[in-house]
């Protein structure tokens, strides 16, 4: 591997230790498989308190996304990865704004909207 890190940081997806990479992918596959199996098991089992299942699914999904970022995309908080990490943090921030912002606004609108039958009567 060429050491480009001396210039201006490092691109995402390049890890420092090229010789250990095959193992890195296999470790990632191992964790991702366990988390995927856990997600599918959680969604179809009766052993878990039902209202807790969505929370557990969300935790498992976020954990698996983390595994993919670290072991497949080789994103880390190393000094030469600062730019990639900051871009990722900003991306996650915008994703959060879009998803939760939309859901809150739509739930509010839904709550504030006049019931459908009254609305129909006003239109007549």
């Amino acid at each position, binding site marked *: 591997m060429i050491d480009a890190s001396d*210039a201006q940081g490092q691109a995402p997806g390049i890890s420092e230790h090229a010789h250990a990479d095959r193992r890195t992918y296999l470790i990632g596959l191992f964790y991702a498989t366990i988390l995927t199996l856990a997600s599918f098991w959680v969604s179809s089992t009766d052993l878990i308190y039902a209202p807790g299942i969505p929370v557990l699914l969300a935790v498992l999904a976020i954990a698996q996304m983390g595994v993919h*970022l670290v072991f497949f995309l080789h994103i880390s908080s190393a000094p030469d990865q600062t730019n990639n990490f900051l871009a990722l943090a900003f991306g996650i921030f915008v994703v959060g704004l879009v*998803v939760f912002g939309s859901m809150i606004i739509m739930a509010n609108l839904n709550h504030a909207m006049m019931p459908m039958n009254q609305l129909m009567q006003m239109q007549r």
Partner: protein
Amino acid sequence: MSMVDQIVPYPKAVPLSMRGPAPTRVVVGYGFWLFLLSDIIVFAALFAVYAVLSGETNGGPPGAALFDKRHVFIETACLLASSVTCGFTSLAVQRRDTIVAYLWMTATFVLGAAFLSLEHSEFAQMSVSGNGPSRSAFLSAFFTLVGTHGLHVTIGLAWLLIMMLQVATLGFRPMVMRRFFCFGLFWHALDIVWIGVFTIVYLGAR
């Protein structure tokens, strides 16, 4: 090692601001990373639409009645395995090992195509039974979100095919290696989006 790849390391004493522009590989990788993050923001908007509309079935079937978890599990396994074979491809490309690279590229292509054909059969089955995208707001949001991901996988497969041709015609020159590198990032990012899809759409179906 070709001349273009030779990067002379700077002495540690030279401050970052005095080191000149970053090498092309780093600039290309960072630019593509920014594209991927904005692509994920597109998906975030579609996820938000799905979250808002997932209950609006208009008297039609809800997700739980339409989705087959075993089917989704096989799709997930295909995509996860293809992510690993894609990683092995990029390792082989870094070693400029043509035969091994072709082997893993073919494996990645086959797994990606298997995923797409499974998704296509699911879509076809739903459309034929009258539960196409025009049936309800829920199904419109479903087909838009999952279809956009499928479209990305299709583009990824076309890209992979082009890379196979470029290795044959151009060889492992730095330009081709950078494209491989971007393809790897693209493919791994698609798998991350799929984690959101199978968790929210299929496993979270009510």
